[in-house]
């Protein structure tokens, strides 16, 4: 699992709970949890460590961890979870299956536009994470269609956060589902608030840090599905016989408290769509 990303942590807790439930009585289950910093070298080292430990199954959360394991070309079965739109990339292999998710980014842009008139949208992403890059590119396509200027802010380390200062004050921010960005979210949000800019994310926990709204796929569902796949593999089903899944159901969090801080009143028609309202 990359770092302490809360989205993946929730997924992992659900995974463990479900796997324990599905493990036949008397069968011993040992879980080794690794939380490296989500850069490719650290993730690759972790994958090698687990391969060396000759585990029966590797579970990877997010695209960067999944791709790091796949690159090692191991025969150990791999179950992934928390992988954004895996159908759009080459996440495949004889021993690979898993449960990804998709959130309609068009809806996020629509919601941001209903909060304020947007001439520039800034996308905060990390080039070290494949699915974060894809989300940034998807937003690029959408903003071209809707005649909105796009700025991409690439965060690879803490010092990259400074780039946020140079973004326009008259805009909005989309924070991609990135473990690296997530690890600096506590520093990023105050800078966006200073700019009085609304922000949106696909990780719901970031609303607690002050993100204005989040449209997300509930992570516990992915953890549970991944556990079902893992249980089948541990009981002898080859991964190639287990079809990968993409979960698309979403929930919407609107953060009225954070919006108030930046002088934005959520329109009532948006509030009625919310699954969770933070007051």
């Amino acid at each position, binding site marked *: 699992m990359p770092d302490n990303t809360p989205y993946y942590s929730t997924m992992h807790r659900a995974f463990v709970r479900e796997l324990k439930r599905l493990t036949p009585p008397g069968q011993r289950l040992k879980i080794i949890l690794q939380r490296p910093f989500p850069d490719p070298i650290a993730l690759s080292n972790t994958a090698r460590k687990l391969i060396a430990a000759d585990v029966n199954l590797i579970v990877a959360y997010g695209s960067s961890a999944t791709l790091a394991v796949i690159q090692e070309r191991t025969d150990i079965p791999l179950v992934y979870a928390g992988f954004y739109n895996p159908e759009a990339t080459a996440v495949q292999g004889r021993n690979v299956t898993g449960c990804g998710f*998709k*959130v*309609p980014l*068009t*809806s996020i842009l*629509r919601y941001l*536009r209903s909060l304020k008139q947007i001439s520039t949208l800034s996308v905060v992403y990390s080039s070290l994470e494949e699915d974060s890059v894809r989300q940034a590119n998807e937003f690029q396509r*959408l903003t071209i*269609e*809707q005649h909105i200027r796009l700025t991409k802010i690439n965060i690879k380390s803490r010092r990259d956060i400074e780039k946020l200062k140079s973004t326009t004050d008259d805009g909005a921010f989309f924070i991609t589902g990135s473990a690296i960005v997530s690890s600096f979210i506590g520093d990023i949000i105050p800078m966006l608030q200073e700019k009085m800019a609304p922000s949106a994310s696909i990780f*719901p*926990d970031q*609303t*607690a840090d002050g993100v204005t709204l989040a*449209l997300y*796929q509930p992570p516990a569902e992915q953890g549970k599905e991944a556990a079902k796949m893992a249980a089948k593999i541990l009981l002898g089903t080859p991964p190639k016989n287990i079809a990968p899944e993409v979960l*698309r*159901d*979403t*929930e*919407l*969090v*609107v953060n009225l408290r954070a919006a108030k801080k930046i002088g934005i009143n959520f329109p*009532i*028609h*948006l*509030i*009625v*769509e*919310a*699954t*969770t*309202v*933070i*007051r």
Partner: protein
Amino acid sequence: MIVCCATKFRSAGRLFLLVFLCLTAVTVQAPRVSAKARGLLIGIEPEHNIFDQIERYRDLAGYLSDQLGFKVRLTIMSRYGEVIKRFKSRQLDGAFLSSFTAALGIKEFQLEPVASPVNLEGKSTSRGYIFVRRDSGIKTVKDMRGKSFVFVDPATTEGYLFPMAFLRRHGVKDRHSFFSRCWFSGSHASALFAVLDGRADIGAAKDTVFNKQIASDPSIKSELRIIAQSPPVPEVTLCLRDDIPASLRQRILSVLLNMKNTARGRQVLKKFAALRFIKANNSDFAPISNMAKEAGITMSDYK
């Protein structure tokens, strides 16, 4: 739970909306005396954005009051079916009704259909759409098995009656066992957004709301696929109680039909987003009874 005081509730904002609607309704009600002495109390079924809706209807009520010489007051229902309860308890003189509640009211309470507005596209009717996200891979009813379906309200033709008839026609006898989850969004626009966001796999809503949202955000069109559409049904009809004197009903109809002929009338129509009103008839509602029959729904069972 995300923060300590977050409200975890399906459509949490509806709480606020309900409180608002209750207050609105309470403030406009009055004890029942003769219709002319106390004016007319007309109900309106809720739309997605009730603040816009209040604006649209306010001028119409004012215009009717001026032309008729007594007060016409409006009250917005908290949900589609509430209007039936209000007619049962004789708390309304009439209502602007969508096709399902109008058909039910005509049958159960002998309401008289008076007039329907013609929208800016020149139509007084709407159709029901069943739609999915294009990237969902759902193309037929067979593909819908195990997915989630968002309806609008049990008291809507486009948002419930039509999809139920369509599903029955394609062999779905029990929606609860066929779908993983079915729920009611409360408004046509909410059903649309639920599918757009991925909160539901399949949705039903009326075409006029669907097209309005596309007009305001053209990207929606490329995201959704329409699987089926219903025959046209009257979108909104002003229906009055049958104990309102026929002469008064005729006067109201006459005022509405003549709106297009006066400068002020045209101004009010413009704000109401209509070109004119046309006379409504009982026969306009025949397709709804047919749909109910096909859906296996007894309309009079509606509570």
